[in-house]
């Protein structure tokens, strides 16, 4: 009997080996096993993996324009009212309130009176769209469904701190105009992370799921990358970096892929000048005959208006979206989920202050691990088509660089005198004297003297064409300069050494050393 069982065991073992050997080629390259049905439900917010509250939220998702497919839709029009649907909410600590152990949603601040906050009545969170309690409810639903989806894909949200969301963060009576901010709080490790929405009126951002999902996208960028700080320079105040563009692109991508539409901000754009009704804030597909390429958005201009993180982000989402479309073409609706897995797996590989080239490399690596490299050509092809060449000619001639430090007095005025306690900004003039364009030119400030404390330690200036020059402090604003603070304890007349490194993707770094005379 024992021997018979052993033989069966061996046969079973052999059969397993044979099956894995014969079938492994295709099964292993389809990516990890996923519960596509559940993931589709999480995406729609129709289902949650956690404890589902008995209370329902009544919402127009993602916003009145897209829910009604009417670019002229208003918050209180009858078509908008007819687009209201009810949704579940998850993990509520109390079925009548929106708080969870992780998420605290308020209007203006943590000290809001509970009497003004959304409270379920007869199991319903149901308010007029212009009511800030509706915005709270939208925040809860949009954020919870995003967490549910991305966690089910295998990317854990870092909940080591609470997330506080303020749906109208401006002070009473303050007119800030619309916007939204995410703060990951790297410099305050024991404080909650925050999302703050600003703006009221007919097209208040608080009504739009896109706004929360974009901001939550920033949160996931940090979570998924293991808080590597892939745009730490941006956190430290950089005016432009490619890492900042990646951050914005993936925040947009999060909002786009969940709703399955290649745009963000159709609602909030209604209150911005220069946008026609229904025109999105940013789009992951080209409109009309214009095909956006890297060269359109990567070159430094003379004023510091370009490159710009949001323009580069929009260009990047067009690549991400095109790759996503290829997955859909291969695998149908589930292909979008496979694409999301690829995108976020790539993010998880990014290190501090990453570039677009680093992201492309990470996408290829993630594809190799998840899908046996089956999309190498597609990924490289989309970057190439959008003007981001894989093979670059090298810049061999050293750039000409000159540095002009400015002291900043307590009123914020730049002066040529630098005193202890002042901020210092390093104006730089850089010229590319090579015949080859320099890609992703950056300046990084380093200090070996404890009395010179770098604050905005790196700035990106985009690509410099052959012969092109930029002048930060003359043409470009000084807000695009790397900066430091001189310790107030430094004696007058002392000298502080500094080092600037000029970096690029396709050439050797240059080092400029200097001394500040106090």
């Amino acid at each position, binding site marked *: 009997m024992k021997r018979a069982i052993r033989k069966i065991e061996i046969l079973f073992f052999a059969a397993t*080996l044979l099956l894995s050997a014969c079938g492994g080629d295709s099964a292993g390259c389809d990516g990890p096993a996923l519960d596509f049905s559940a993931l589709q439900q999480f995406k729609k917010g129709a289902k949650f993996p956690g404890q589902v509250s008995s209370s329902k939220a009544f919402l127009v998702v993602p916003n009145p324009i897209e829910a009604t497919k009417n670019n002229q839709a208003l918050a209180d029009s009858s078509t908008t009212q007819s687009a209201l649907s009810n949704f579940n909410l998850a993990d509520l600590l109390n079925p009548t309130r929106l708080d969870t152990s992780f998420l605290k949603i308020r209007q203006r601040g943590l000290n809001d009176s509970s009497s003004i906050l959304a409270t379920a009545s007869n199991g319903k969170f149901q308010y007029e769209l212009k009511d800030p309690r509706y915005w709270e409810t939208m925040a809860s639903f949009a954020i919870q469904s995003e967490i549910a989806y991305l966690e089910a894909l295998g*990317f*854990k949200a870092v909940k080591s701190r609470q997330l506080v969301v303020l749906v109208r963060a401006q002070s009473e009576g303050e007119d800030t105009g619309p916007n939204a901010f995410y703060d990951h709080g790297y410099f305050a490790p*024991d404080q909650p992370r925050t999302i703050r929405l600003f703006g009221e009126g007919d097209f208040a951002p608080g009504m739009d799921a896109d706004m929360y999902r974009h901001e939550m996208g920033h949160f996931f960028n940090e979570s998924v990358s293991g*808080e590597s700080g892939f745009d730490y320079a941006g956190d430290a105040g950089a005016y432009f970096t490619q890492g900042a563009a990646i951050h914005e692109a993936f925040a947009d991508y999060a909002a786009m892929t969940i709703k399955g539409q290649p745009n963000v901000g159709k609602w909030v754009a209604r209150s911005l000048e220069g946008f026609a009704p229904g025109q999105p804030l940013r789009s992951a597909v080209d409109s009309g005959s214009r095909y956006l390429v890297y060269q359109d958005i990567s070159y430094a201009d003379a004023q510091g208006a370009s490159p*710009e993180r949001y323009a580069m982000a929009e260009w990047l989402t067009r690549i991400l979206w095109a790759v996503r479309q290829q997955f859909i073409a291969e695998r149908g609706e589930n292909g979008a989920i496979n694409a999301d897995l690829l995108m976020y797996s790539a993010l998880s590989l990014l290190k501090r202050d990453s570039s677009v080239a680093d992201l492309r490399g990470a996408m290829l690596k993630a594809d190799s691990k998840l899908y046996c490299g089956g999309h190498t050509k597609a990924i490289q092809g989309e970057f190439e088509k959008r003007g981001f060449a894989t093979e670059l000619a090298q810049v061999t001639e050293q750039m000409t660089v000159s540095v002009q430090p400015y002291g900043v007095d307590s009123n914020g005025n730049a002066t040529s005198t630098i005193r202890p306690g002042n901020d210092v900004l390093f104006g730089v003039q850089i010229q590319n004297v090579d015949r080859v364009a320099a890609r992703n030119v950056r300046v990084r400030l380093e200090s070996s003297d404890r009395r010179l404390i770098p*604050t905005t330690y790196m700035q990106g200036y985009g690509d410099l064409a052959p012969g092109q020059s930029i002048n930060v402090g003359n043409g470009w604003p000084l807000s695009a300069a790397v900066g430091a603070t001189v310790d107030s304890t430094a004696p007058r007349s002392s000298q502080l050494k500094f080092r600037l490194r000029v970096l690029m993707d396709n050439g050797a770094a240059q080092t400029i050393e200097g001394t500040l005379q106090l």
Partner: protein
Amino acid sequence: MMNIAKTLGVFFGIWAVWVAWEFQHSIRSLTSAAEPLQRVASSLPAPQQLSLASPIPQPVRLPQRVDGSAMPSLPEIPVPARFAATAGEAAETFLNEKRAEWGVREYHELRPTTYESPMGTKVKYAAYQDGLPILGSEITLEVTQDRDVTLGENNYQAVKKVDVTQPILEFNQVLERAGRYQLDMSATSGVSKLLYLVPGSDEPELSYSMQVKENGNGPTENLIFRASDGQILGRQVPRAEFRR
């Protein structure tokens, strides 16, 4: 290409069956060889029945020092990282093996945060002293599903111990000195204490991190002020959804 892979797969499968069969056969041979010995052993009387010197079994006594106190217990043998049950345990084992090499000070506590993704798990250890985080001093380990652990990044700094009881300003005195900043407590308590390591220094500064608005306007920023005199050491800004 696919056919070659499948053929190789079939050959590998057959080879594996053969290896498994041989392995099983060898084990069975060993077991059957041991069977007569087992039978002999079981027929022998139990050891205590043979012992004439100590017919009454003695209680087991732990080794003792001359003064009668118990000897220290044997050191726990660490389980290699690859046999750890969780990624966190594997990382912890690896970290403990590397502590001396990386010069981790005994007054530094390394607190882990775990990040999971389908590409693997990262465990980041942030350095603390006396309960205060040392900003940026951290070690990131990467753990595969097979529990292989590698160093991701090591930004740990074996810096001097800070006297956290040193006299410092109150945070509102710091704000008064800075002049143009107002504390924003709308979403947080607004103020934290931490240790900030200035480049070029080997001793962190006891500091305040504050969420402030400059002249009461604009987005909330995080500033780090040296607690002894209010000197600004660092600045961090939030991300805006679009530029205005």
